């Protein structure tokens, strides 16, 4: 089967990244003495064209049949070198990488120690490579459709791009309407575009696009399968309104017995709605939804003599019999655009949020300044008699960001600019207002940001450098206690309104998607991309891409850019039509398998089944692997008592010699 190994070992200097601490010549010399090694060379950059050419030439001229590249992490360049092997006519799985950079030269300073360790790493790779077997990369068809989870601006943009390219999109949104957080914004920084004006047309496009199947008020329940062939189950929650009949006229909402009595989520609880409601006027779809937790008829079984909405609806669209519906479909790619949660300001009790009614979050202020908001765009605090227009207004920056005490070390990236924007808008609405911003640093890094910040300051907004220690009530006023760190003066500042510039956090339900799609989280608990620089929209799960704030805080332009990136990644997959499936899958030696089914129990993917085979005339049960479903984790192999199921490229027979090579004392 395997011809005698002729191994080439290629030690990379990586400029001086490796050679600075590892004696590359010594490692090369050592490698050349290892059994089966025919060629051992070193070169400044193995990944460069000439570096790769070196390998290809040796394969052709020296008849190498195994290659060890001792350079950086296989997570970096394994694919590069596999490709090089393939181009030279060698099976790409005859490659083993020795990680001399990330796991040796960069983490050790002592040249002698690092070199000794490098030798062992190389010896281990050589021990393994001689036993590697050629693998076949099989291809499967890609289902030409994409699932997008989340109907905010990221999901909308990705959906439109993919649909416009001619591929089917299933867009699943949890709430009754598209729009996400962006729809709540009044204006966007730094250009002061009206948020609704730029977003609404896109929402309408989505709803009317022939390639997009929009599922609002729906949730993804289950995803099985693998890249190119995901099987998706979506629960369409009952709206108790027949969307085909509902015209969105709104009579029901006015007639509802609870009209104006339920805090409206869209207005951050400051406005009121009924139990049957449209989240906001521009909602897409413009269909009403009954809130099953509030509706009298649904919660108590009785709503007067008969529910008012039923009586009022001219289209007869109300349907209390409606049930959740499970929809199943197949897609080739998945984009996760689930967005973020706003930091819960009650976790900073020193600022009195939730305790004093004139402490607002920035998003609440955003609703107040919005023409579609609860006050019709008037910045008015209090209700009825006690209503007043605040004159002294303070913003506090970095609430819930850059703050280890609440577990958020990161910068939320948008607060500085939205604060500037809100300050500007407040000044515009209340020209006589005194607006100041308590800040640690102002980060105005984007296009037009610094200019905007400058403009707002010129408009009279004061920036005070210092993180307030607390906000408390004194009479009718709120007092902010802070130290101006530029003048080193402590100050007590009496204001009418405190606005907390709250940061962005991973969604509280982030776990659901992790479990659904096997994603990882970075330290900040946002979803982890495959590589922070080179694969910022990919994830560890093939065929699953990230867009928007689900991956980390970002502003609208960045979100849209990333959404377009995710769409493009999905499109590459869809348009190629085929995808290579994992080659390093498990396989069963049916001659020794005892059919105990441990592997079947263990496999997280249901990729192994028990089948009956004929063994010398006896019917015996053995395990068999469905290679398209196998993800190559190898958990089955470690659980197999007879060693009959083995993961290709990670067989016992390949790992044991690695252990031996590392164990031997030099």
């Amino acid at each position: 089967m395997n011809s005698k190994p002729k191994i080439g070992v290629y030690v990379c200097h990586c400029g001086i990244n490796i050679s600075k601490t590892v004696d590359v010549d010594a490692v090369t010399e050592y490698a050349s003495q290892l059994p089966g090694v025919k060629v051992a060379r070193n070169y400044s950059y193995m990944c460069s064209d000439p570096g790769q050419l070196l390998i290809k030439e040796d394969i052709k001229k020296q008849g190498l049949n195994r290659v060890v590249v001792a350079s950086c992490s296989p997570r970096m360049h394994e694919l590069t070198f596999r490709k090089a092997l393939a181009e030279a006519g060698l099976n790409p799985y005859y490659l083993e990488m020795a990680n001399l950079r990330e796991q040796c030269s960069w983490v050790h300073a002592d040249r002698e120690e690092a070199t000794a360790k490098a030798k062992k790493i190389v010896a281990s790779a050589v021990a393994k490579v001689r036993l590697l077997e050629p693998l076949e990369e099989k291809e499967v068809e890609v289902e030409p459709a994409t699932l997008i989870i989340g109907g905010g601006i990221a999901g909308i943009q990705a959906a439109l791009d993919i649909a416009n390219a001619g591929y089917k999109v299933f867009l699943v949104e949890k709430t009754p309407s598209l729009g996400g957080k962006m729809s709540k914004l009044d204006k966007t920084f730094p250009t002061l575009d009206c948020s609704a004006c730029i977003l609404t047309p896109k929402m309408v496009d989505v709803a009317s696009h022939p390639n997009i199947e929009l599922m609002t008020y729906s949730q993804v329940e289950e995803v099985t399968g693998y890249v190119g062939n995901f099987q998706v189950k979506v629960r369409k929650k009952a709206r108790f309104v027949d969307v085909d009949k509902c015209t969105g006229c709104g009579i029901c909402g006015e007639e509802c017995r609870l009209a104006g009595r339920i805090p409206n989520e869209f207005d951050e609880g400051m406005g009121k709605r009924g139990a049957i409601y449209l989240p906001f006027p521009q909602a897409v779809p413009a269909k009403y939804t009954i809130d099953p937790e509030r509706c009298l008829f649904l919660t108590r079984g009785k709503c007067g003599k008969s529910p008012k909405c039923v009586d009022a609806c001219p289209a007869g669209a109300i349907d209390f019999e409606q049930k959740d519906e499970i929809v199943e479909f197949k897609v080739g790619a998945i984009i996760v655009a689930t967005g973020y949660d706003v930091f819960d300001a009650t976790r900073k009790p020193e600022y009195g949020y939730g305790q004093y009614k004139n402490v607002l979050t920035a998003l609440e202020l955003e609703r107040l300044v919005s023409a579609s908001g609860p006050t019709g765009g008037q910045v008015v605090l209090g209700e009825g008699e006690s209503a007043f227009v605040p004159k002294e207004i303070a913003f506090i920056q970095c609430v819930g960001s850059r703050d280890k005490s609440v577990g958020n070390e990161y910068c939320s990236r948008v607060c500085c600019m939205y604060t500037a924007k809100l300050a500007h808008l407040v000044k515009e609405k209340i020209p006589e207002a005194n607006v100041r911003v308590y800040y640690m640093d102002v980060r105005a890094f984007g296009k037009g940001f610094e200019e905007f910040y400058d403009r707002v300051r010129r408009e009279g907004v004061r920036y005070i450098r210092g993180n307030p220690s607390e906000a408390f009530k004194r009479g009718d006023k709120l007092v902010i206690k802070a130290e101006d760190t530029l003048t080193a003066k402590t100050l007590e500042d009496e204001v009418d309104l405190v606005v907390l510039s709250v940061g962005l956090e991973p969604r509280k339900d982030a776990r659901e998607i992790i479990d659904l799609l096997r994603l990882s989280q970075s330290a900040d608990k946002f979803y982890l991309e495959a590589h922070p620089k080179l694969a910022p929209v990919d994830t560890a799960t093939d065929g699953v891409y990230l867009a928007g704030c689900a991956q980390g805080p970002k502003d609208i332009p960045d979100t849209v850019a990333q959404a377009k990136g995710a769409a493009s990644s999905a499109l590459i997959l869809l348009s190629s039509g085929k995808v290579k499936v994992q080659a390093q899958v498990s396989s069963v030696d049916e001659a020794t398998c005892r059919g105990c089914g441990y592997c079947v129990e263990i496999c997280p993917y249901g990729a192994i089944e028990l089948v009956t085979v004929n063994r010398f005339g006896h019917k015996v049960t053995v395990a068999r692997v469905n290679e398209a479903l196998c993800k190559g984790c190898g958990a089955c192999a470690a659980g197999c008592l007879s060693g009959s199921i083995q993961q290709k490229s990670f067989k016992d027979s390949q790992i044991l010699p690695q252990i031996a090579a590392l164990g031997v004392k030099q």
Partner: protein
Amino acid sequence: MSEKFEPNIVAFLCNWCSYAGADLAGTSRIQYPANLKIIRVMCTGRVNPLFIVNAFQQGADGVLVSGCHPGDCHYMEGNYYARRRFSLIRELLEYIGIDPRRIHMSWVSASEGAKWKDVVEKVVAEAREAGPFDQFRRNKINW
């Protein structure tokens, strides 16, 4: 123990979390002892507990298995199997008198480069305390 003793540690790391975490430690130039050498597997679920027995036989003074935090396994469940298997082999090895300071398992995520350093330092330090483990080595017995 003599000051010269440098324990030899064999570590099995999953590709997605701990190996990536070790890579991150490298990218971040975090320095740690060179005693530990890594064998990459796709998932800690691949680590047959008998690898640990074999590593001791082949000359390891300590062994580490490191994978994703519970719930974060790239393959959903592999680290749970690994944990159960490891807990059993650890009990058994300790029972026959192998110093538990030689047998470690850790959760290190792809973002925990700093934790990786801490883990390596601890594993190396404990193996160093436990001293050279020659009693179980193949070591050319009766050659």
